[in-house]
């Protein structure tokens, strides 16, 4: 056997750049979570449009509210709501990993940290609704 020349030929398995996430359920769940940001972004744009219409005056804003109440408008808001909820829930659920709270030798159970986030969310929602005159 020729021995100065190596017969090694490591084989590299290519990862398909466009459809790698179809290979495993956990990748699909991850992409679903990541895709929610598109919808969060869309809602942010939508909020900007709302503010712009408000600035244009009463009539423009009422027109905007009528568009919101239309079937297309309601469908749009429902879709966004679903993705926003998935976004929020999936991120809340992993917060204990990023912020472990150690008390003595043990760690605060993850569910408490998650629950604290939900509680905070509810509290902030109540405050905003109160400011908006909902109560």
């Amino acid at each position, binding site marked *: 056997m020729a021995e100065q020349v190596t*017969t*090694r*030929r*490591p*084989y*590299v*398995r290519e*990862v398909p*750049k466009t459809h*790698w*996430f179809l*290979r*495993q359920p*956990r*990748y699909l769940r*991850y992409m679903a979570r*990541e895709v929610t940001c598109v919808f969060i972004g869309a809602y942010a744009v939508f909020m900007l449009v709302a503010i712009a219409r408000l600035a244009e005056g009463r009539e423009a804003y009422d027109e905007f509210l009528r568009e919101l109440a239309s079937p297309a408008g309601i469908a749009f808001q429902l879709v966004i709501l679903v993705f926003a909820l998935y976004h929020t829930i999936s991120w809340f659920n*992993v917060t204990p*990993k*990023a*912020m*472990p709270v*150690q008390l*003595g*030798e*043990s*760690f605060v159970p993850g569910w408490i940290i998650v629950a604290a986030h939900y509680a905070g969310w509810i509290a902030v929602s109540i405050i905003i609704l109160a400011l908006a005159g909902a109560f």
Partner: protein
Amino acid sequence: MSERVVELEVLRYNPETDEAPHFQRYSVPCREEWVVLDALNHVKEALDPTLSYRWSCHMAVCGSCGMMINGEPKLACKSFLRDYRGVIRVEPLAHFPIERDLVTVIDDFVAKLARVKPYLIPKEVKPLEAGEYRQTPAELQRYKQFTLCINCMLCYAACPEYGLIPKFIGPAAISLAHRYNQDSRDGGRGERQEEIASAEGVWECSFTGACSEVCPEHVDPAAALQQVKIKSTIDWYLEHTMPWLNK
């Protein structure tokens, strides 16, 4: 002795005889309590001595036998045949080049491990005669889970970032840096930050979380990486708003 015949589909590759990897089927008489590693050992002993793979301890502590089993990164010594039905597909660990059969080239991982300075850089130097550094059980708990990594690389096989962007330093290496950062005796975080708080380091991570899902030792590398991100972010703000503070 044979209580169940298991069909194994094993990915073979010999650079001297094969253009590309190909599957080979083996019918293996197995005992009920066996793991995939036991089946592979039977193949090598009785059916095909040319099969190459790494293994040693058979108790999930040496980290040698990481493989893809039915597409999932697993330790062959802890993959129980009782959990599988039908043909079991065995392939070398994903995201690493194949050297031969189930043996991968792990140079990249070994280099990255060394890069992050995974050794104690003591906060204060103490002579041996002065005895041990004091470390309370609570301080030990702060970093203990991150010491459990057996360097099996299942996390690298699961991580889609590493698969798509090979320059990513990766979960195990960064977790090991974090292990030392969290150790009360250590003062080397600043030195490690240069490597891990970088574009190739923790900022390449998009928190897929696959690494923690596959880790056989429950190290939770995803948690380590997110914790590093938070600390690095705080560092950045402090550095830019209060530069007079020491890191």
